[in-house]
């Protein structure tokens, strides 16, 4: 059995409204679903502005994991240094908990922040080597619509994009077989 090659097309639209309209038309005329397209913009738009799927992520796990790691490191560092040089002052316990809390708190927060940054990059799928199908006009306010479809639907997708007001349509190389 021969599987059709897949190909990506990038339509450059002058406005968000034109891009949203094109995506509606693509759904009706070429059977393009939210799984088949991505929208590229130069600023954030309200979620669902282009009919895309809601973004699923697990970002909130990262700061919690980081906080636990940071707390552990802070605890080990403070307990470890005091046990390594047990300085008894005025008969008080060697492990000075109130003093430790400060370093442990900073360790916890540092861990949470570091892991959050890692989480943001991981969930944003960054770093990505090469930007893929992209056009610098997107950073000037144009809206890019990247559609991934089978080769046989490419002419339909291109025509729908142009009819909906795309300033340009760029095709990526075919892939798969």
């Amino acid at each position, binding site marked *: 059995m021969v599987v059709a090659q897949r190909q990506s097309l990038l339509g450059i639209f002058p406005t968000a409204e034109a891009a949203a309209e094109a995506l509606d038309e693509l759904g009706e005329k070429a059977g393009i679903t939210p799984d088949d397209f991505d929208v*590229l913009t130069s600023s954030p738009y309200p979620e669902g502005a282009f009919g895309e799927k809601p*973004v699923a992520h697990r970002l909130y796990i990262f700061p919690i994991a980081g906080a636990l790691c940071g707390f552990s490191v802070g605890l080990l560092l403070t307990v470890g240094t005091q046990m390594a040089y047990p300085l008894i002052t005025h008969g008080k316990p060697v492990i000075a908990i109130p003093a430790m809390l400060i370093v442990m708190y900073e360790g916890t927060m540092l861990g949470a*922040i570091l892991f*959050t940054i890692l989480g*943001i990059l991981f969930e944003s799928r*960054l770093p990505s*080597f090469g930007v*893929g199908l992209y056009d610098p006009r997107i*950073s000037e*306010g144009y809206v890019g619509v990247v559609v991934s479809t089978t080769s046989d639907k490419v002419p339909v997708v291109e025509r729908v994009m142009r009819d909906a007001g795309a300033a340009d349509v760029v095709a990526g190389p075919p892939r798969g077989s």
Partner: protein
Amino acid sequence: MQERPVLSDRQINRELLDFVLHTPIWFWGVLMLLGLVFGAGFVAVVYLIATGVGVWGENWPVMWAFEITNFVFWVGISHAGVMISAILRLTQAEWRRPVTRAAEVLTVFALATAALHPAVHVGRFWRVIYWVFPYDFFRGIWPNVRSPLIWDPSAIFTYLTGSSLFIYSVLIPDLAVARDRSTGWRRTFYGILALGWRGNPRQWRLQTLAGILLSGLILPVFVSVHSIVSFDFAMALVPGWHSTVFAPYFVIGAVWSGVAAVATLMAILRFMFKLHNYIRPDHFDALGRLLLVVGNAWFYFFLLDFIFGLYAREETEVKIWQARIFEWPFNALFVIFLLTAYILPVPLLMMRSVRRSVTMMFLTSVLINIGMWLERYILIVPALQYKQVLQFSWSTYQPQLPEWGLVIGSFGLVALGVFLFAKIFPIIPIYEQKESQVFAAEVKVGKVTVPGVIRE
């Protein structure tokens, strides 16, 4: 009424990346000037290291003076970033947009400069690493985690790391714009830093969440940093310092001086980079209103510190306040401090015409920071200089030229850092400006049309 010019994405890119992608002749002049100011501090530090800490005017019992004053001052300034960026981000204040990055960058350079001071203060600064990290595995001597001098580096390291990463994470979309609009080595440079950013809904969603989440995480760190700086004093046995109100008093004082520094910086950036479309009188108006609230809160804590100091009628405490208010030269400094930190700026900020005047806001914010520098000096030196019971030697403090050099140089270092950052990266968040244009709306109310913002 708010002004809201309609700007295209292309115009925003062009205007905000102009200084990044092109180098005007005046850049070199300003660079040289700031280099000279920084050089004063550099020479002072080299002289100190070559000669020894005796070149400073410090002597027992005043072993902390200009250096610790400057340290507290710059840590205070560094609180601007989080105050402006995190709180305004969390409350979705629309006027934050042009202000956030400059405030965050000021945080990083002010904090890094502050962190240099304790290191310089020890004279043989290359050995400062021994304080901070466990060392000397052979003799088994470890840093004392019970000392506030260990808490300080841990708090500053967390705050500096968090703030730097925060700046980078929210800078990524703008790095992608710089990548798209540059050529040659610049394109490679911004391309690497942009990490392959495309601007799809997933990335934008995560970017928005990053701003909120990191703001929420950095806020408690911001409060802890200046609280811990206050512990350097409040947990000592020096009369005049061990006050229970010091932590909130320091935090609010830091916000007061930090927000004022942001106003100063915004005025300079607007003038230098011709950012009239982005930093507008209504932004200064909002900053001025914020300053009014913070300034009065700070003065309340100052009064509390003053009243708590006198109410118990503890002899030493009373005498230290007498020295601060009545003895030369502190009496003159105290008057200047009160005038510049509160009496002049707060009534000025109550006037709408002042808040909307860039020049007046610049001058008022500079006044505030002169006052806040003096506040730290008056807090520290008279208390140390007071002759305690059974103290066998004491002396008065006279700042020497190398100390003045250090203070001037620290201003040069922060200014140079912010200036070079603005040369390499956009100092006004580009995507935030574009987002504000996407959500801008005009609402007709009766016979007037009011600019508004749509919020999800």
